[in-house]
């Protein structure tokens, strides 16, 4: 499979979830396990550009596909992705545990809807649970990210 633009391979029993595979086999520990039953969204990644809960996929299902995790948003030594930049600027994270999942969901949202209003942001992000921020600054972060992306004219 391709993960963050790189060919990766590994071994897994069929029952191993994609989330566990990413973390344990590929060492990509930015994707977090919050519930392991598909409700909290902490494990959200992109599969072929579309958001998916990696705890609800088996690793074997990802074979041949293109995955993006939080580590793929920005080069390790490079500048932050505008969405990451926005979350920090607007205090959209506190403990940071749910953040990677949010970033991937926001990535998809802004690719589809470059200028979402507050109601749409909250609706689209209702599948990601945060216990720290109360969502207020997450919404601000998404608005700011949208601004940065529109300003940069960058394709997401």
């Amino acid at each position, binding site marked *: 499979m391709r993960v963050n633009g790189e060919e990766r391979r590994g071994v897994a029993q069929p029952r191993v979830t994609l989330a566990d595979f990413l973390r344990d086999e590929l060492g990509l520990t*930015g994707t977090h396990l*919050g519930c392991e039953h598909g409700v909290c969204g902490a494990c959200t990644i992109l599969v072929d550009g579309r958001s998916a809960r990696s705890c609800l996929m088996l690793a074997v299902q990802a074979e041949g596909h293109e995955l993006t995790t939080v580590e793929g948003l920005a080069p390790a030594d490079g500048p*932050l992705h505008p969405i990451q930049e926005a979350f920090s600027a607007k205090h959209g994270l*506190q403990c940071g545990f749910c953040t990677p999942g949010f970033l991937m969901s926001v990535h998809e949202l802004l690719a589809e809807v470059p200028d979402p209003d507050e109601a749409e942001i909250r609706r689209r992000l209702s599948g990601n649970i*945060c*216990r720290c921020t109360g969502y207020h600054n997450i919404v601000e972060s998404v608005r700011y990210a949208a601004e940065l992306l529109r300003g940069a004219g960058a394709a997401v």
Partner: protein
Amino acid sequence: MTTVETREPFVGRRLRRKEDARLVRGAGWFVPDRKLPGMLHAAILRSPFAHARIERLDVSGALACEGVVAAFTGSDLAGRVGRFQESARKEVTPQLLEAIDGTVKPTPFPVLADEVALWVGAPVAVVVASDRYAAEDALEAIEASYEPLEPVAGPEAALRDGAPVLHPELGDNVAARFRVGSGDVEAAFASAPRTLRRRFAFGRHSANSMETRSVQASYDEGRGELTVWLTNARPHLIRTHVSEMLGLPLESVRVVVPDMGGSFGTGVYSEDALIPFLAMELRRPVRWVEDRQENLAITRHARDQVHDLELAYDDDGRILALRDRFLVDVGAYNAYAITVSYNAAAHLRGQYAIDCFSIEGLNVLTTKAPVSPVRGAGRPEAVFALDRALDLVAADCGLDPADVRRRNMIPAEEIPRPMGMPYRDGAEMVYDSGDFPAQLEQALEAFDYDGWREQQTLWRAQGRRVGIGISSYVEGSGFGPHEGAVVRLDPAGNVRVVTGAKPHGQGLETTLAQICADELGVDVERVTVASGDTGLIQYGIGTFASRSAVTAGSAVGIAARRLREKVLAVAGVLLDADPDELDLAGDEVVVRGEARAVSLAEVAHAAAPGPRNRLPAGMEPGLEAQYYFQPPTVTFASGTHLAAVEVDEETGFVEVLRYLTVDDCGRMLNPMVVEGQIQGGVAHGIGTALYEESLYDEDCQLLSGTYMDYLLPSAVEVPPIEVGHQQCLSELNPFGIKGCGEGGAVSPPAAIANAVADAFRPERVELNRVPIRPEAVLEAVRAARARDQEEGGAR
């Protein structure tokens, strides 16, 4: 080059957080993120019964499973792993107990159940295998048979004659009790023009940080050194427990807590000692990661209180006396002494001048998961009872709820004000700072309360049920006994702070750096804050109870001041100048008004040990300062919250339209961080008010075992949260700081319940239990209408 005098302080600035850099990249280090070579994985067998004798546990089937290395039961641990001795109980002094007519009985608990399992989820056996998948398979191969015993499903059941006594040595199921009060309450009630009495119930709740718990341990047999990594905001406490329970010297145990995905409360659990034991026993690193099913069953359960509250008042809504008797369902062990229950009692009267009062609290043992102090820790329950009662007083006297509050509020001139009872730390409880009336007015104005009341009349005419609710609280913050900091300057001019506090989202790496930078006189960019490692600082208490900004902040600030003195003293020797004439500026120490300067590298050299040092007489080598701050007692933060809700009368669904707070947390180190704490607290409170309950059935089986049943609010259920600030500086630390981590979560249940009831005014709908489910709203409206009909609408 700017000098300290001309630069704006870092404290008070909305600085971006240092911790973000790694967290937004997914490069944080949470315990399960780093493997150790040869590491094994544990899984725990848990009791499926609320109350059962463990007849037989045969692990041979598990040992035969692929990948399994070991399996242990309670009997294997007997004599080898001690029981948890509750530290909170030891903190309650005999003097305090006497003053409050209190008893706290010991309920030490075993790491694995010995003969009897006392709640669903109680740990019974552990399997260690090559990976978690294999370990869970092996759990299924354990043959366990139980003799189910009668569950004790709640405090009423626990107190009934003939109820099973869960800890026979205690004689009954009351683990703790106390009474506080002042004044002749009987007389006041007897002569009062009006009285009311209600039962207010606060459902059980669980903290639900997004990261579940995990414990990882490794034992260096050669050195006899045990290292434990875990998600716990009290690393030094864990070290003490592990050392005692495993019989290791304190200095042989190192506890490291890396990034933590939230905490929202404290707790010590079996696994905290069990996993280190396994690492020692098996001579290999062992990791255990709690899954969410376990977490919902066992971790940081909280609240679960019932208050029978009475108020005596006059026709003008002035409270003459208060009487409260309340029960806390603490679950199967009372691991926290009277922390939560005494908090509830201490904070019950809130911002109001109610000096004739009697409060009695009982901690009752039941066959549920043991509770911990969780965000608010007794205050939400107490505030709910009082604020609901005040709205009932308002309705009874024909007053606006805001007016009732105005009439009873402690005026600013009376602060500092003794409150007629000790605080939990044994000191006299005194509101040291605050201006409650101004806070209320600020909140009402920011909300446009009068405008909304007018609008409410129009909406009512249109058939819309929109309600407004008020709640306020006080919070004793910055609990002691101490917190420490070590501040060290290196030759390159970089500063490293080590503290015993353990942040888990509240931005201490940034806020403590801000205070250090100001007090030392360096750029905040230069300061790094390390925490969560007992190897780096000898004593620590940890982060909980809204204490770290106060205690760690003060410790850092004072240590930084002392280090500054030292730096300037050494520079003074080098420059042959009076330290009072010197300033820190960038990488140098300069003589004010002159061109003479010396670099920090030179200062560091001069301060280094060795024959060539150039230290003032009597000064120890090294550019480091340490300070443990001991707060005299808690310092009182406070807040006023306003909620507006709309209720769908046909379905009972409640939408929170608007939420506004004004919070006084004294000097704000970083207003952005403060707002985040409050907004997060409010969301937590909205969950508590409307959605979240750890629900047990009559057999004490947990019904809310998944996230389909335990409902955490999402971005749709939480509105934007408007945060206003009031700054009444603390008198109890040099920096005026008060805590703000919990306040946001304290008032929402009361504010929202009041708002829902208000939506039906003038009908007298009562909502005296949280969480408020839609069905309960319909039932409350039905009940109010039936009551009104019965009384012939005479009111």
